[in-house]
């Protein structure tokens, strides 16, 4: 009996100590996790900004005052730039430590070390791209005394000061859940972030999957489906034609006859590349626009910023005000990890960004000596040595779970795609992160549009359209980036890697970049459309541009309103008008048979506004899907199987070009005997879409309301449901200024309206909140206002102590001497 009792107590104690001290399956180590003082419950104690802390810290030259307003925004008052950036690192780490860690690990390809082997594929992909590898090389070569190095070093000092002084209750929730400790922040991690943004905004695989399209429709047709020049022009640089938008109504070259396509393979080796259509590429989208005083109600320039990115909780953005006595007084948003403001304003200027979508990446077909054990690649008739790096992946216990060899040519990393080796030449892997930090630093200090334009001259890795305004009344826009000049002029196809003559020769002269300062029209706008009308400048900048629906809309709104108010600028950001519907619906109605039936009647009476209570938009979207399925049958992976997916989908502006032609051969379904016209295709599509919608949602009525179908989903960084805000109905849809499509995980990530005068007046919001703590009141407090298109008034005090009763917390950082 005693033996049994001893056995039971031994077993119980051992089991409890084990589950208490070590993770078991999906469960964290329960002892640490449940501990009311050090475990997950303690997270509840750190939900608010600090009430009134005074801390002595090493690394500052002199004291820094940080005041938190009631929106959770820190206002940093420092006496030197380095101190201000140090404090920025400190406040960002305080609110977003896990986000800093996760994005760094995602870029470095070290997620397996905290998430386990499930993350191995993602890590392998990132390491293959070489983002962290190239950032490490840039950092190693950078003079530590250079301004860029000093900025990121100061930032790292602030982040690490927070990490090293962490109380258990200040450890973010996710660390408790996953059971690991924060790693120290290395200055190079700021460069990782720059590479990550470059990846998000410029990575493309079109040159690889383009061959799949060529196999199906021929080379000429492929060029027309994924064109270098958009068939609808509404450029960001005011163009030389008489009227915009301008439409290319010339016929699209026909697909090659089936008999000519001898080597069509139903299952392409490249199909795993998940090609994006031009419009899907455009989901990495954004809007910005500006009106001069001649077109505003107050006579002052007004600027609107509206970048669209993947939405997450916490948000990608962090709002902050940075003041350096006599040097700098700027407000805006930073991305955790960046030592400065990316979008924002100061007392003199305001700026915002959209993605250019320029082609800054080329694939080169390489000849390798031995694919199984590569050592050399062929170049100009000789064998050149491949650079090799070894990548080791570890699990959370530190055990090695995989080792890869990665290879580089002089152009960049080698990827094997479909059994063929390609090397990657990509501006994002060049050493420009330091310049990027300095560009944003200079922008925050600019006092005029001219100075802003100059500040952004060397903003390279993720090419951006910068819209600008100053309080003297000047407005401007400029594309930035490193736009390569190629020997064959364009980078549409993969290049021959066996010769140096295929290498990039240099880049566009900055003077020729798209842009305009103080145009006669009195306003400027960009929304990821082709920046330059080829009528004015036919030089190759990119390919497969997203349809310019948002650009057309904002330009229409600005053309029609010569007395814009800041509130109108705000309303434009969620304007329900949709140029895509304005273009396609009349086209559909033109082709309708006599009368056309109830389905056509619905389209005829539709106001084409994507408001939440609308009941036609859901049907219209199904019509669009049906039309695409019929017109692009040539692009099916397996033409004999209707359920097979398309190898690629042209943008909707190309679809419009086909349909308006009426008898385009693209409308013919090549799988049938008869020859279908575009009218027949539209007829069938409208009828089929109506039937489908009725079958799915019943007769037109409440179930067809747009708000029941189009929802935004803002996921937590780890995709944890209870920490996410899902199913948020919004005004807008595909092609709207407030775009919402697909899974609803992409959208307006920061909205800002700034009026510049003797006093700066600014409003802004983002979908989320300042805190990364899911039980903080500042975790998702802004979502409800964001959902309905409202903005918060921004507090922009000139000195410390002026927040009045809007101040809810304060931290005084006292210089402790050590650096």
């Amino acid at each position: 009996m005693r033996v049994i009792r001893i056995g039971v107590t031994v077993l119980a104690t051992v089991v409890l100590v084990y589950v208490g001290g070590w993770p078991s399956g999906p469960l964290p180590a329960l002892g640490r996790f449940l501990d009311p003082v050090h475990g997950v419950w303690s997270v509840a104690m750190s939900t608010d900004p600090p009430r009134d802390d005074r801390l002595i810290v090493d690394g500052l030259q002199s004291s820094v005052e940080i005041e938190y307003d009631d929106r959770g925004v820190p206002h940093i008052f420092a006496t030197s730039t380095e101190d201000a950036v140090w404090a920025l690192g400190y406040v960002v780490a305080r609110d977003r430590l896990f986000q800093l860690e996760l994005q760094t690990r995602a870029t470095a390809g070290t997620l397996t070390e905290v998430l386990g082997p499930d993350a191995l594929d993602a890590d392998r992909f990132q390491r293959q791209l070489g983002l962290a590898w190239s950032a490490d090389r840039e950092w190693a070569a950078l003079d530590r005394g250079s301004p860029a190095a000093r900025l990121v070093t100061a930032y790292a000092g602030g982040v690490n000061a927070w990490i090293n002084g962490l109380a258990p209750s200040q450890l973010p929730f996710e660390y408790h859940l996953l059971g690991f400790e924060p790693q120290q922040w290395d200055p190079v991690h700021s460069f990782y972030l720059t590479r990550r943004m470059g990846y998000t905004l410029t990575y493309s695989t079109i040159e690889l999957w383009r061959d799949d399209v060529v196999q199906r429709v021929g080379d000429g047709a492929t060029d027309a489906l994924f064109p270098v020049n958009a068939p609808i022009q509404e450029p960001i640089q005011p163009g030389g034609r008489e009227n915009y938008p301008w439409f290319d109504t010339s016929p699209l070259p026909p697909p090659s006859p089936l008999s000519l396509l001898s080597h069509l393979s139903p299952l392409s080796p490249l199909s795993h590349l998940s090609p994006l259509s031009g419009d899907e590429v455009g989901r990495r989208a954004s809007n910005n626009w500006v009106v001069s005083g001649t077109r505003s109600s107050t006579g002052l320039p007004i600027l609107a910023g509206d970048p669209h990115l993947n939405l997450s909780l916490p948000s990608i953005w962090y709002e902050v005000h940075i003041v350096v006595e006599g040097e700098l007084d700027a407000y805006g948003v930073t991305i955790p990890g960046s030592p400065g403001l990316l979008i924002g304003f100061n007392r003199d200027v305001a700026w915002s960004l959209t993605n250019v979508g320029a082609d800054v990446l080329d694939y080169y077909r390489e000849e390798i000596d031995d694919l199984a054990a590569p050592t050399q690649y062929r170049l100009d008739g000789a064998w050149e040595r491949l650079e090799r790096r070894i990548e080791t992946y570890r699990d959370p216990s530190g055990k090695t779970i995989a080792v890869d060899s990665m290879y580089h040519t002089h152009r960049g990393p080698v990827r094997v795609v479909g059994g063929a080796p390609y090397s990657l030449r990509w501006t994002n892997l060049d050493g420009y992160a330091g310049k990027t930090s300095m560009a944003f630093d200079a922008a925050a200090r600019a006092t005029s549009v001219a100075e802003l334009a100059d500040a952004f001259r060397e903003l390279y890795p993720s090419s951006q359209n910068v819209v600008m305004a100053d309080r003297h009344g000047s407005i401007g826009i400029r594309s930035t980036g490193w736009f390569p000049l190629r020997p064959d002029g364009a980078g549409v196809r993969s290049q021959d890697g066996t010769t140096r003559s295929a290498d990039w020769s240099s880049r566009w002269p900055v003077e020729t970049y798209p842009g305009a300062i103080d145009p006669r029209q009195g306003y400027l706008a960009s929304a990821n459309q082709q920046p330059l009308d080829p009528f004015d400048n036919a030089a190759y900048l990119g390919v497969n541009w997203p349809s310019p629906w948002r650009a057309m809309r904002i330009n229409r709104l600005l053309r029609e309103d010569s007395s814009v108010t800041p509130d109108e600028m705000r309303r434009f950001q969620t304007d329900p008008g949709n140029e895509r519907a304005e273009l396609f619906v009349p086209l559909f109605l033109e082709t309708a048979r006599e009368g056309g039936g109830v389905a056509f009647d619905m389209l005829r009476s539709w106001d084409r506004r994507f408001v939440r209570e609308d009941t036609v938009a859901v049907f219209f979207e199904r019509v669009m899907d049906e039309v695409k399925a019929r017109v692009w049958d040539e692009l099916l992976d397996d033409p004999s199987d209707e359920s097979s997916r398309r190898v690629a989908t042209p943008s909707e502006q190309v679809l419009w070009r086909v349909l308006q032609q009426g008898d385009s051969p693209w409308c013919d379904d090549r799988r049938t005997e008869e020859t279908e016209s575009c009218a027949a295709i539209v007829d069938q599509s409208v009828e089929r879409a109506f039937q489908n919608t009725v079958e799915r949602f019943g007769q037109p009525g409440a179930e067809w309301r747009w708000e029941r179908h189009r929802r935004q989903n803002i996921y937590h960084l780890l995709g944890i449901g209870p920490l996410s805000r899902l199913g948020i109905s919004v005004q807008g849809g595909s092609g709207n200024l407030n775009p919402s499509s697909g899974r609803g995980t992409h959208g307006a990530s920061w909205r800002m309206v700034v009026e510049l005068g003797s006093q700066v007046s600014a409003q802004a919001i983002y979908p989320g909140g300042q805190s990364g703590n899911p039980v903080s009141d500042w975790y998702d407090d802004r979502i409800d206002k964001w959902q309905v298109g409202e903005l918060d008034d921004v507090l922009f005090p000139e000195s410390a102590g002026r927040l009045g009763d809007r101040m809810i917390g304060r931290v005084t950082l006292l210089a402790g001497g050590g650096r």
Partner: protein
Amino acid sequence: MIRRVMVLGIVMAALTWFIGWWGVLIVSIGWGLVAETHTNPARTAALAAVGAWSVLLLLTAMQGPVWTLAEMLSGIFGMPAVVLLVVTILFPVLLALSSAALVGELKRLRTT
């Protein structure tokens, strides 16, 4: 008995505060070693653990939204929030009970 539980609970709470959940194990083993076997040290340790972690949890709840956190965690782990709170108290109780009882049994084994 009540006094013993209270004193033990305070020590357990203090040790948890300073070194974490291992404090429960250390105090329980220590108590098992010093307490007379006929006083049922395992029960005393278990009651002390209930008191210690309940008070610590209460102190935490006074400084932040513990219930909101519990509801959030319940969504993640797929169990009611109240169960999570119960588990939080049950874990140190079982640990204290088993470890103090184990020491008691070993002591008895040695004396016989």
